[in-house]
């Protein structure tokens, strides 16, 4: 069976409509053409709602920022409020799962299980 299964954390239910969702994962580059649509989608979601910016592109434009670029929104947080940033190009699956854990921690104040120790 597939290895990275978010159903383990109760996050399985997939809804193809923003009106039934409370979490938007922006999983790629946001272009200027996509920007108004993304904002509409966010506004269609009922509150309370959260956003995860997944990958360097969604966080800041990532590798596609260069002088004279004409089609990029340099970070989805310029459009909608972002709760969790998951870095990587692309992020590893563990990264996204950790992002979901962090979001859970942010909402409930408690963590399911101890996270990785940070030594710095």
């Amino acid at each position, binding site marked *: 069976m597939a*290895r990275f299964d978010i159903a383990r954390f109760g996050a399985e239910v997939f809804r193809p409509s*923003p009106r039934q969702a409370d979490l938007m994962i922006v999983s790629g*580059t946001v272009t200027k053409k996509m920007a108004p*649509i993304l904002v509409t989608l966010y506004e269609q979601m009922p509150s309370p709602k959260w956003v995860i910016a997944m990958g360097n592109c969604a966080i800041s434009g990532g590798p596609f920022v260069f002088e004279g670029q004409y*089609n*990029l929104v340099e970070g989805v947080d310029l459009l909608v409020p972002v709760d969790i940033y998951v870095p990587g190009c692309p992020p590893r699956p563990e990264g996204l799962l950790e992002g979901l854990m962090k979001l859970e921690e942010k909402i409930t104040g408690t963590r399911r299980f101890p996270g990785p120790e940070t030594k710095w």
Partner: protein
Amino acid sequence: MTLAAKTIEEFKAEFKSVDISEVPYDKQGYHLSIESRTGNLLGIVNFLDRREFYIVDLFCVDYQDYLELVYFFNTHRELCRIKVTLKLDPEKPVAPTISNIYTIARWYEREVHEFFGVYFEGHPNLTYLFLHEEIDHYPLRKKHVPVPDGDKKLLNSFKPHEEENSFFINLGPQHPSTHGVLRVVLKMDGEYLISAEPVLGYLHRMHEKMAENKSYMQFLPNPARMDYPGALLFNLAYVETVEKLCGIEVPERAKYIRTITCELNRIASHLLWLGAFPADLGALTPFMYAFDDRENILDILEDVTGSRLTYCYFRFGGLYNDINEESFVDATKRFIERMRERLVMYDKLITGNVIFINRVKNIGILEQGQAKKYGFSGPVIRSTGIPFDMRRVEPYAAYGSIDFEIPTGHIGDNMDRYMVRMKEIEISLNIIEEGIKRLPSGPFKTEKVPKKLKPPKGDIYNAVESTRGETGVYIVSDESDTPYRMRWRVPSYSNLMTFPHLSRGVLIADAIATLGSYDIVVPEIDR
């Protein structure tokens, strides 16, 4: 007599005043070059159309003094690449349309129009395809050329006029069935489609513009981000083109490792599709199985390349590092054994499933005759029965010394496209097995490749068979360390553009099945 020689002879008899010249194929990747003028372009294109040439690509290069439209043609029977060029005045660039001869040119010409400001006389719908409403210049022009006010109206110019019995639906850009951010505007009559028009550019990441701003080495990670499921194959397309351009030799061992890893990547990509295609039809179980197998490949490739998805493993003149002979070969052999068993299971799980068969059989039929007009490639063309595969037509890496079969379909429906891909997984396994058996020892990269590449002046076209079809790279070099112009011929683009043709008059659910059967990757189409 080769087709190139024959074409020259016939061409000279028909067009007396037009320059046709033979080009050193080893250096530039195409055989013939024709310099046309506005007056005789249509005649030349008609001449090629009569000889069963298909259109590979259409794009523009800005040489500052003039704009050059470049048309690439080739045949499905024999490799004979022809470059037709047309010089245009940069102040007022106008060219005749060829969209009534080659249907796919409709979209290519729209692309050229919005990025270079070239007008095509007689084009049925010269509106913007990629760009957004705030753009005020033509991005790929070397100088800043503003968009005239009249043209600004064409940006996002879709203005539906509803008729009495029809209405419009936007499929995408956030619809799960479009596998990314593709938008298709559907004109519906109840459940039936009257017409469909793809709208692109929601993931246009300016790769071609970036190439003009970065050195050859710095652009290396980009191709993997165009086609993320088949990253190594795009990586290979780029690396091989630059190697050919600079005349860098690649050691045998590197060629074999490239072949093996590329085929592993091809299987991974097909498995991703194998999960997604039935999911489009409502069957969610195969997804779990396919991703399970895919994880095995990702593990093997992660050991070698260092990343899970967007590999950047090949370097100019070889590889980033050598494979660990024991662990890599063992893991690959174990995977081949496992995958062969799993294919039997997939046969029972999906191929024999009566619901699946009813959803895909005799739906989305592409005729062989369309291949020339649209220039589609990969499993899509092979499903129509044409055994066209760049690995065979123009062998690169180690494909020339490995014998393999090319699977073809019969009628070109969704079922055939499914069967061709399933068969390809099996054949890729054979290629990997053969490659491992013959893997030579020796260096894995050429020494003495300069850090700063400065290729000689000139242009080159080179193509590889990526998961979705013919992936070509065209580079114009001006002797500096950045490409003057880089053009990507991506297979999903021409594959997708057959959708308006196939979806006319079918049920929307069947159209979704057809869209799923193309295996499109949107970052690749939008570039």
